[in-house]
């Protein structure tokens, strides 16, 4: 189609944690941005455009905070764009950044996403009651837990599957120094006995609330060739949305997710994701979403996702590791989480994932983000080699 080929040439993130009490919000994003720039061998002056993504502004109580952070982002005198697509925002932010390069408008783009949830409270921020809008009486988990029940019924899944994911992702996180949760003693029993929040979800089946920032430097092919380190090439990007509620909606295995995956796989030449990817960084905020997304993303037929999880197919040393970084279950600065998925997929393809590096055999990885009532999806496939 003539789009400029685009690569990830720098990645940076803060050590995600419950509360960063030593920095301001601009300081937080700055930390991630500096690390990404250093990784790319660049300074702020080399950046042509800045894209920032985050969750609703009510989390931090600042209207359009990217405006107040323009200095910290080195964005003064440059294009600065703010993306907000609910939980998928981190992924969308990367895609919008990539579009700047693909459209030939920028050679180097700084993409940043963050959340400083400790300024308020994530539960409050997500469920602020609005007049005349049916309230989420049971919070965000109360929306997803019934869908998980529906999945368990459809797939006839045994009760412990979620716990397997809860343990797997936290053990993976032990290899990732940037992950928020480091739970070296976590066991299946511990998860199964943790506090029951929204049946069937237990405390350890759910993600933490984190302060954190993630940054990528995206570059055109020409600029990527000058990068000092290995780069990850963008092979495909896709976004899909569907309405929150409509007649006949499959909330458990949403069409928008399936369509989004099909689109990004087509662009990246992926026919069988289980075989044609080295790993996947997938937005799994509640443990059961791994088997659900395995089906939604076409890694298996509907009803079979839990079997893959149970068989260890997605384990760190499995056939197709899912969330080798520890995933959202180990770190969740909401606005950044999608970008962390996209960025960690890139790190795997750059061979920069340190102790949680998976073998790169095929040379492609999937980054995935979703948000809203399982209605907004953003995905990309990145590769160790340039696309054909």
């Amino acid at each position, binding site marked *: 189609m003539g789009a400029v080929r685009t690569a990830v040439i720098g990645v940076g993130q803060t050590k995600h944690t419950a*509360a*960063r*009490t*030593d*920095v*301001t*919000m*601009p*300081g937080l994003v*700055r930390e991630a941005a500096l690390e990404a720039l250093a990784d790319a061998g660049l300074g*702020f*002056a080399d950046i042509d455009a800045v894209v920032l993504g985050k969750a609703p502004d*009510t989390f*931090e*109580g600042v209207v359009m905070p990217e405006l107040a952070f323009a*200095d*910290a*982002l*080195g964005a*003064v005198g440059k294009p600065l764009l703010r993306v907000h697509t609910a939980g998928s925002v981190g992924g969308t932010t990367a895609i919008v950044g990539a579009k700047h390069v693909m459209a030939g408008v920028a050679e180097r783009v700084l993409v940043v996403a963050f959340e400083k949830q*400790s*300024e*308020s*409270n994530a539960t*409050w921020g997500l*469920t*602020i*009651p609005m*007049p*005349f809008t*049916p*309230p*989420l*009486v*049971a*919070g965000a*988990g*109360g*929306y997803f*837990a*019934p*869908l*998980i*029940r*529906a999945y368990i*019924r*459809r797939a006839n899944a045994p009760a412990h599957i979620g716990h397997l994911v809860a343990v797997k992702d936290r053990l993976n996180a032990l290899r990732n120094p940037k992950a928020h949760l480091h739970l070296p003693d976590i066991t299946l029993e511990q998860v199964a006995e943790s506090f*029951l*929040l*929204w*049946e069937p*979800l237990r405390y350890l089946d759910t993600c933490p609330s984190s302060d954190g920032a993630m940054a990528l430097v995206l570059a055109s092919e020409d600029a990527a060739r000058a990068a000092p380190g290995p780069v990850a090439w963008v092979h495909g990007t896709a976004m899909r949305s569907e*309405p929150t*509620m*409509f*007649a*006949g*909606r*499959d909330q*458990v295995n949403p069409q928008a997710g399936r369509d989004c995956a099909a689109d990004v796989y087509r662009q990246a030449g992926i026919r069988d994701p289980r075989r044609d990817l080295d790993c996947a960084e997938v937005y799994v905020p509640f443990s059961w979403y791994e088997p659900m997304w395995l089906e939604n993303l076409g890694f298996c037929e509907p009803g079979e996702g839990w079997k893959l999880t149970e068989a260890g197919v997605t384990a760190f040393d499995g056939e197709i590791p899912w969330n080798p970084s520890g995933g959202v279950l180990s770190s969740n600065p909401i606005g950044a989480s999608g970008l962390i998925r996209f960025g960690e997929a890139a790190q795997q393809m750059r061979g920069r994932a340190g102790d949680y590096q998976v073998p790169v055999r095929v040379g492609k990885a999937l980054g995935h983000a979703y948000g809203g009532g399982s209605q907004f999806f953003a995905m990309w496939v990145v590769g160790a080699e340039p696309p054909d």
Partner: protein
Amino acid sequence: MTATSDPAADAPLVEHHVLEYPGGYTRSLGPALSAFFTGLRDGRLVGARTPDGRVVVPPAEYDPHTGAAVEEWVEVGPAGTVTAWTWVARPKPGKHHLDRPFAFALIRPDGADTALLGVVDAPSPDVMAVGMRVGPRWARARHGTVRDLEAWVPLEAGARPEPAPPDEAPEAADEPVTRIVCPIRLDYEINAGVATSRYLRGLAQRRIIGQRARDAQHVYVPPRGSDPMTGAPTEIEVEVAQTGTVTTFCITNIPGLSELAPPIPYVTAQVLLDGAATPWFGLVTGCAPEEVRMGMRVRAVWADEPAPDARTLIGFEPTGEPDAPYETWKDYA
């Protein structure tokens, strides 16, 4: 059933809405703003010197022009010069610090190259002018917030500002200030919209009235004004039954998630009302949580005093009928 043509039925429903994080936002400070707020608590104005030698106040963490980190703190002022001003004739109680009309001004403290926003306690706008000299009036009790500098006041020609009085605040004055708390309260008058108003007025009559688009069959409950699949307006009202089927649910064990949450454990469910195309979300009551099951038949539970309000439809309770066969609702769960 068609809508009533009673004009009062179309009057918009309006509700006052307050957006406020209880207790205010806790904002942690980095080194630059910690220096600034600690300075305020100590009765001093602190700026920063950027790498190119300019003095910036409030101390920016990053140079406004180059983005470079700034790490050298400099005391500035205490007096300053007004570089811009405006007047607030109606101060907002609880937000503006002064309860009498005042000026906002950009004030460049002596020794600084930039101006900071300040409140000037002046008797009238006639006193204000770009170029005038002002000095800080410090609060007697200072806590490391912007209000430690209670206000700027006009300075007579050649006069020096009063020094800051000793801090009367009881808390420890030796530790640097590392965070500030920022209360933010915003008020809104929100109207329900045409579709939602009709639905809520129906609830007030203990009726559940959905809507569908002209050329479609799907009845949306609650209606939102458009068919989400096409964007077409949903102009036709259809009353649906007050019975339905639980398609899925969960038992919540966390107290206090919402004002409407009953004591834990409680059940929230998706309920497919007979005749509706989309499930209704809400409470299931009238039985023990462990008795709730997918496919359970339920009927509406109404508040004693119905009002055009979502809370009038409290939730659903079991009817006692046999469960609906899986085939009749499996596409909804």
